[in-house]
Structures are given as C-alpha cells and as structure tokens.
C-alpha cells in the first residue's frame, strides 16, 4: 500500500541518491568539523553522511569554539573566552545577561560552555559513527579519522562522569555514550566486552549506593503502602453489595493527600559520587 503522497518523497530520495560521493564526503567532513549553530544551542539536526569514506581526510579533533566578535561577560567570567559551539553570539550574549544577576552566574556559564563543548564532541563522534556505518564498517575509514574518533572518544569518556553528576546526562544515555566511545578505544571485541562488563559492574555498585541514599523516601512510601493495604483489605471485607469503588477511590485519595500533599519541584538528587567511566584498557 502506498498513498499518492508517498511518490514525491520517493522522487526526492531518488534524486538525493544520485548525488556524487565526493559531495557526500565533503558534507560529512563539514558536518564533523564545523561548529554547529542553531537558533540558540544544543545538538543539530541530521548529520548522517553517506559516502565512500576512504576518501575522507581528517584533521585534529580540536575544539570548535569560534572566536568571539566581542566580549560581554558576567563578572568573574572569562570574558575573552571564545564562543562555545552550538550557540550564536546573540544567544550567548542573552545567556550572559541572564546569568549576570545570579550569584552563581559565572559558574553556570562555565558549566553551560562545558556542556556545549561536550555535545559538540558527541556530535562529531556521531558523524564518524554514521560515516563508518555508511561505508560498511570502520575498517573503511582512513587512519586519520580513526585518530580523530579516538581523541573524541577519550574526551567523552573523561567528561562523562561530570555531566552525569550534574544531571545533564541520564544513566541510560551515559551507558550509550560510554559504549559508543569505548568502541573506538578498544582494539578487539573481547576487550570492548571486558571494558563494558567492568563498567556495568561499577554502575551496579553505584546503584547500591544510591539505593541507600534514597532509603528515607522509600521508607515514607512504604508507610503509605502499608496503610493503603489496610484500607483495601477493610474494603474487601465488606459485603460485595456494599463495596463502592468510588468511595474507596476517595478514601485512597485522602490517604494519598495526607502522605504526599506537598508538591515538589527540584533537581534530581545528584549521584553520591561520580560514576566510573574508565575500565580496563
């Protein structure tokens, strides 16, 4: 089944497939190197190249911060610092202005800058992953691109703990990032396996630490659950004809209000300590 609307799209796809490999290679390189600038910030749209990647040439995986057109910093900030990737000058100025009134403004700007640099590293590694997939495997990449990928991978692994600690990266995201980066750093599948296994063990240990930290919250919920069970058991003991589901729901809501009445909006609790990101090399 295919509706008429599908046909123009198919034509576009066919046209795109006719574009020469050299153009795609150039695109891949441009995507990998250029600082991405969206309206404001953060990772980009599609950056998947398709090319005979052996033709790619690589340069150093240098940071892609752009020179600042002007300095306008928060007090205490490094006002001469270059613009981080993923944000234009106007966007960064607005951010600086927003942070100017905050006591922790300079630290926040530094954190955001570090995150944008990290995101840019991830974006560039993603581009190289896609290039390798498109080429049919990493063996098709020229050595210089392998070198670039390894530099990026090391930087990502080193920075990951901090970004998890700061709740910028979730645990599952961290697992993927760590695996993606580690896959460039280990020479054999067995070594990668061992590294990821060690990492997963360390994560399990961390989970135990966190479980201990979260115990008070769990205790509070356990008290609620015990009371709730008593309410439900009593309701069940009533003759079937007199059990009113709406009444039970109201009673349970009242119980919930007593236990969980106050709303909470807060950052997630930070992990007790930085997650391990290393592992056997």
């Amino acid at each position: 089944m295919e509706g008429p609307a599908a046909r123009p799209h198919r034509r576009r796809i066919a046209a795109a497939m006719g574009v020469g490999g050299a153009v795609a290679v150039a695109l891949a390189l441009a995507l990998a190197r250029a600082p991405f600038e969206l309206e404001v910030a953060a990772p980009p749209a599609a950056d998947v190249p398709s090319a005979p990647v052996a033709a790619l040439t690589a340069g150093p995986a240098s940071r892609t911060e752009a020179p600042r057109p002007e300095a306008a910093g928060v007090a205490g900030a490094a006002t001469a610092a270059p613009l981080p990737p993923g944000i234009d000058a106007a966007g960064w100025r607005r951010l600086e202005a927003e942070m100017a009134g905050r006591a922790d403004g300079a630290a926040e700007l530094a954190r955001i800058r570090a995150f944008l640099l990290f995101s840019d590293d991830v974006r560039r590694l993603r581009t190289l992953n896609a290039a390798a997939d498109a080429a049919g495997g990493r063996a098709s990449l020229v050595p210089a691109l392998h070198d670039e990928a390894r530099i990026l991978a090391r930087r990502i692994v080193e920075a990951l703990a901090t970004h998890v600690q700061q709740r910028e990266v979730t645990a599952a995201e961290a697992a993927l990032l760590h695996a993606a980066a580690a896959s460039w750093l280990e020479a054999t599948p067995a070594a990668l396996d061992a590294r990821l296994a060690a990492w997963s063990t360390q994560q399990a240990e961390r989970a135990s630490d966190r479980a201990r930290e979260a115990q008070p919250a769990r205790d509070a919920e356990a008290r609620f659950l015990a009371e709730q069970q008593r309410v439900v058991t009593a309701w069940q003991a009533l003759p079937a004809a007199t059990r009113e589901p709406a009444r039970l729901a109201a009673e349970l809501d009242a119980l919930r209000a007593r236990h969980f009445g106050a709303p909470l909006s807060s950052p997630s609790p930070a992990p007790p300590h930085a997650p391990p990101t290393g592992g056997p090399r």
Partner: protein
Amino acid sequence: MNPLNLLRRLAPLPAPTRAALATIASLAAALAAPSAIAGYFQWETVELPADSGAACGNGTPYRFFVNRAPGTRDLVLVYEGGGACWDQEACLGRGPLSAANPDGIPPDYLMQLNSALFGNVTPFSGRNSPFQAVQTQAWNVVFLPYCTGDVHSGSAVRVYDDSDPANPRVQYHRGQANVRAAAAWLRADLGQPRKLLATGFSAGGVGSTTTYTLVREALEPTGAATLLADSGPLMSAPRGSAPEQSPSIRLHETIRPAWGLDEPGGLVTQFAALPGFDAQDLGTIGPALARRWPEDRFGYLVFRSDTNFSAFSYEKFYDDISGAPNAFVRRQRLFQRWEPDIQSWLALLGAQPNVAWHVAGFRNFNDSHCLTVIDFSGTGIQELGIADIGGFVDAQLDRGTPTRAFETDQSDDYRQPLSWGIRLVKLLLRLFD
C-alpha cells in the same frame, strides 16, 4: 466553530471534571511560585501533588522530568512505553505481558540503569545521542515516565485480586490525570511553547495519541504542533464486531471498563463531541484528532512484524496464540490478526490529509517493536528508496509533504545491516541483564 468549544457549551462538565479543573488551577498557581529549578541542560524532577489526582499505579507520587534549553520555546514531550495491565499479575509487573514500573517512579529514575535502562533512550528523549541526531535535541525536553499500566489513558482506581486474593493490588489507572497535571505544570512553568512535538513509543505511542488534545489545549503552542506516535496503534474495533473482523475487539472490551475509559471524565467522554469520533470504536480517535486539528501533523510508525504490541493485543484473548505449539506458529497467528488490524487502521486514518504513516517490515531488534528507540537504523523501506525514518520525522516537523509509506517486501529487511548503535545496545543489554 471549535468543536471543543461547542462541547463545553452543550454539555455541562461532570463534577469530577470541574473538580479536576479547579485542582489544576490551584496546582498551576502553586507551582508557578519560584522553586529550586535546575539550570539549562539539566534534568529537573517534578513531583505532582496528590490533590492533582496524579499517581503512579501503586499510589505513590507521579514524577516527570524536564530539561530546558536556553533561548527556545520549542517543546518535545516524550511519553515512555512499557506494556499494560488489566489483571493482578500484570499490574505487579510479573510476566512477559505486564506493565512497567509497578513500584512507581523514584526521583532519580533517569539516573538509574535498572528500570530506566534503554527504554527511555530515543533520540527525542535526550540531547546527546551518540547514534542519531534529531532537531528536537535543541528544544526543551520533557520525559513523561509510564507507571499506570493504562497506556497513559486511564481514569480509574481498581482493585485486582484475581491471582492472590489475600494480597490485592490497588492499581491507579491515572494516566490521564498524570498528563493533565504535567501539562498544567508545564504551561505554568515554561509558558506557551512555540513548536510542540508529542511523541512516544509503544504504550507511549498510544498515550501521546489519546492525550494529544488534552496537551494541545493546555499548552496552546503558537507554532507547529505535531504528533509522532511510534508503535502504539489504536486499532479500529467497533463494538459488536466479530473477532474475525476486528481482532482487537477483545482487548478494547477489556480495557474500556478496566481503565474507566467510558466513565465520566474518561477518555471516551472527552472525545465524545469530536467530529469523526465514534464512541463505539476507539480506533476513530486518530482520524478525529486529525479533523480537530487540521493544521497539525499526525505521524504514525509501526512494524508489520511487531511481535510485542501484537502480543499485548491478542495473546491473552486468543487461546490459539497462547497455546501455540511453537514460536513460529505463534508469530503466524499473531500476524494473522495484526495484518488486517493494520489495514483497517490505515483505511480509517487515510481519509485525513494531515496524517502520515511509515509502516516498515522488520528490524532485528526488540521484536521489531518501536522504530524510534536507540536510532533509526533498520527502519528503511528499501523498495521505496527510503533509508530510514529520518526524512519522515523531518517532514512531519517541517511541514513537508505528508508521506504514506508501506513496505510490502519484507525479505530485504532480513539482510539490512544494523547500526553500531543497535549492536552496542544488544551487547549492553546482555551485560546488564
């Protein structure tokens, strides 16, 4: 005239709905007050108060997660998937066809590797996917976890004691209240968004569909609004139809009373006055949405070889599937129902010009369930020259031509290579298992 305005004029709101609106107003006011919010690019936990009606399945507080980006008003809502339940064992999370997160959502849910693991990793639910870029990674991101067993759609409290009467399970099927209260919080805290994308996978695909109007009306985006429902099709199953004609009828007849869909304030009553909606057929929700919001885009994704959602749809209702002598026969019997259900579903949706779909064949990952999980590799339709769903997603968001692609030849899918990303996740799943 706005059909929902007409609804409000013609039908006085039932008492529970009035109470819910009052609660939302107070909730919004309470939560508009300054709070200890996280910085840009940091995940913030929001716990909804009990008086909002929001709850996880076991009665503990519903929590969701917000990650803001500077200088943008664009917003993506990601609805988590994770099965469904209408009996005690499944609501306790036991067995292959059960519901996720039976013990609720802890404040550090996103920092856990056990429960959240890879279920929440779609390219839409974070900013730093190492495998897949999407434009919403630069937007404000909201992650709506799933803990109610009702595909984010229920409005009922039930006591299940069918497997262990001495220890009944209270189940708060409060998906609608959770999304409603979260939307109110978002409107009060983040303000009116510009672009809006509601997306979800599996149960989240259903939930993003059933709560689309609720969210759309609460947030009132000033720009393009889009639904991208992945692998959560609301099949057509008119009441009174035979299972041979509408294989999902038994599922629908089970969940409607279990989740309170027909009760005051329930899903069906909310859609009741929408043109194109037939209260006798939940499958008409999709077309009714498209008619209600003609400027919006509605994109649906599914695999023809999905053996997960199809199992939830049929296995507990058809003995020939649950009693199949082997896995091959079981698959065949699932697909004997899944295929006609997909055809009926698309036929209903196809009348609306702002609906698009991408029905691919098979992906050697996660039982061919969910096209947006991890990355988009393996979602292509080779016979149409479509490499993956990336173009579909962009066309939905950028208002390109709505495409309707259906893969007829599935043999190519068994030869398509998986990305490094998927292969690594398979490895990780083995390690974390």
